[in-house]
C-alpha cells in the first residue's frame, strides 16, 4: 500500500450512489489524500458503520486513525482543517464562510428533501408540488451562484469550494431526476444559465469526475431505492 505521506490511516464508509458520500470523496481528492473506500451493501448496515455512527447509523463516516467523523458537511470541514496545506475548501473570509455554510445547510434542509419527495411521490399532485419547490430552489441557487461566484467558474471562485461540493454532489441525482420525471428541467438554459455552465465545469473537475456517477447508473439505482421506500411505507 502506498505511503499516505503521514496523512494517517484514512477510511471512508459509504456507497457510490450517495450524494452525501460524494462530498468527502471530492474533498479528499482536492487534498490529494488517499483513503480506503469501504462500501456498504445496499439494504444492510455493517457492524463497523453501526459502531462508528451509533447515533444516526448513516453514511458517510470518515475514519481518521480509527476516529469517526459523521455528517457529510462536518466531514468536509474536518478535512479542510486537518489537511490545511492543500487547496482550501472553505473561504478565508469569515463572512464568506458564513455564506458558504448557509447555502450548504439550505441544500440539505430545503432543497434535497424535495428530491426525495419528487422521486418517491405517491401521487401526481405530491410530485408536482415537490417539483415546484425544486424549481424555486434552483432559482434561488442560481441567484446565489451569480452573486457568490462573481463571474468566476465556481461558488468557490476559481476553484471548487464548500458550496460547490455541497450542491455539486447532488448533480447526478438532479440529472437522473430530470429524466425520471419525463424531461422536467431543473437545470434550465433559460432560467438557470449560470448553474448550467457551473454544472458542466464542476462535473469535469479532476476531483469530481471519477466520483459523480453517470446519470444512467443513478436512474437504475433509484428504481431499487424507490421500490424500497414504497415497500416500507406500505408496511408501516
Amino acid at each position, binding site marked *: 500500500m502506498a505511503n499516505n505521506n503521514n496523512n494517517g490511516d484514512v477510511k471512508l464508509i459509504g456507497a457510490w450512489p450517495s450524494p452525501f458520500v460524494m462530498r468527502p470523496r471530492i474533498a479528499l481528492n482536492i487534498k490529494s489524500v488517499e483513503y480506503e473506500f469501504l462500501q456498504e451493501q445496499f439494504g444492510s448496515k455493517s457492524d463497523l458503520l453501526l459502531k462508528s455512527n451509533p447515533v444516526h447509523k448513516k453514511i458517510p463516516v470518515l475514519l*481518521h486513525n480509527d476516529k469517526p*467523523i459523521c*455528517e457529510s458537511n462536518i466531514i468536509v470541514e*474536518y478535512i479542510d*482543517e486537518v489537511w490545511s496545506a492543500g487547496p482550501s475548501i472553505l473561504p478565508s473570509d469569515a*463572512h464568506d*464562510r458564513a455564506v458558504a*455554510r*448557509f447555502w450548504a445547510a439550505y441544500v440539505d434542509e430545503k432543497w434535497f428533501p424535495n428530491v426525495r419527495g419528487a422521486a418517491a411521490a405517491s401521487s401526481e399532485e405530491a410530485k408536482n408540488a415537490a417539483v415546484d419547490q425544486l424549481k424555486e430552489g434552483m432559482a434561488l441557487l442560481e441567484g446565489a451562484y451569480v452573486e457568490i461566484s462573481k463571474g468566476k467558474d465556481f461558488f468557490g471562485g476559481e476553484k471548487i469550494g464548500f458550496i460547490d461540493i455541497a450542491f455539486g454532489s447532488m448533480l447526478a441525482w438532479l440529472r437522473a431526476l430530470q429524466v425520471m420525471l419525463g424531461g422536467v428541467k431543473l437545470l434550465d438554459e433559460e432560467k438557470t444559465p449560470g448553474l448550467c455552465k457551473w454544472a458542466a465545469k464542476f462535473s469535469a473537475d479532476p476531483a469530481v469526475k471519477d466520483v459523480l456517477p453517470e446519470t444512467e447508473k443513478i436512474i437504475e439505482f433509484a428504481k431499487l431505492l424507490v421500490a424500497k421506500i414504497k415497500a416500507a411505507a406500505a408496511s408501516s
Partner: protein
Amino acid sequence: MATAREPEEDEEEEVKLIKTWSSPYALRAVWALKLKGIPYESIDEDLTHKSDILLHHNPVHKKVPVLLHHGRSICESLVIIEYIEETWSQNPPRLLPQDPLQRAETRFWAKFVDDKALPAIWQAFSKEGKEQEQGLSETAEHLRLLEAELKKKKKRLFFGGEEIGIVDIALGWMVNLVPLFERILGVKILDEEHHPALLKWRQRMSDVDVVKENWPPRDKLVAKWTAIRERCVGKAAANE
C-alpha cells in the same frame, strides 16, 4: 486583554441583531454576543409584520435571528455563532474547540440538537394522541443520547467543557422552555432518574450571568406557549 480600537473602526464595527423577544434561536445569538462582550444594537421584529430590513437581509428564510456586521448579513443561528467565534476569536469564552476532531464532534452535537432534538420536542408539544406519543418517545431517546454525551467526560461542567460552548448555547431552550412545556402538557420530560447530568447542567446554565440576565419575560412566555398549544390542538375555538 484590552482590544484598543481606532475611532473609525468603532463605527464600522457596528453589530446589529434582528431578533424577536421570544425566539430561542435569536436568544442563542444574544448569548454568544454577550458572552464575548460584543456590543450590539437590537432590532426587534414583529413576525406578523416582517420589516423591510428583515426581508432584505434574510430573503431566503425571512426568519430571525439575523446578524448584521459591517452591513453584511449572517443568517441561521448556528452559522451566526461560528461567525461570532471566528470574528472575535480573541474574546473568551471559546465557543468551539480548536482541535479539528473535537470541533467536528461539537458541530455534530449542535446539529443533532437542531435536526433531531428540537423537531421531536416540537412534535410532542404541537400534536396529540399517537403523534404526540411518538414525539415524546423520540425526545426521550434524544435526551438519553445527550445525557450519555454529557457524562462521557468526568468533571465536564458544560458540553463545551469548563465553559459554555456552542452545544450548550444550542440547548439553551432546554433550560427555560422544557419546564414550561412540562407544565403545559402535564408530562415530565426531564427527570432525576434518567437525566441527573442534564439536570445539573441545566442548573449550571441557569446560574450563568449572561443566561440569567437575558431570559424573555416569563409570564409572556407562558402566555405565548399556552396559546400556541391551544391553537395546535384546536382548543381555542372551544374556549371562546
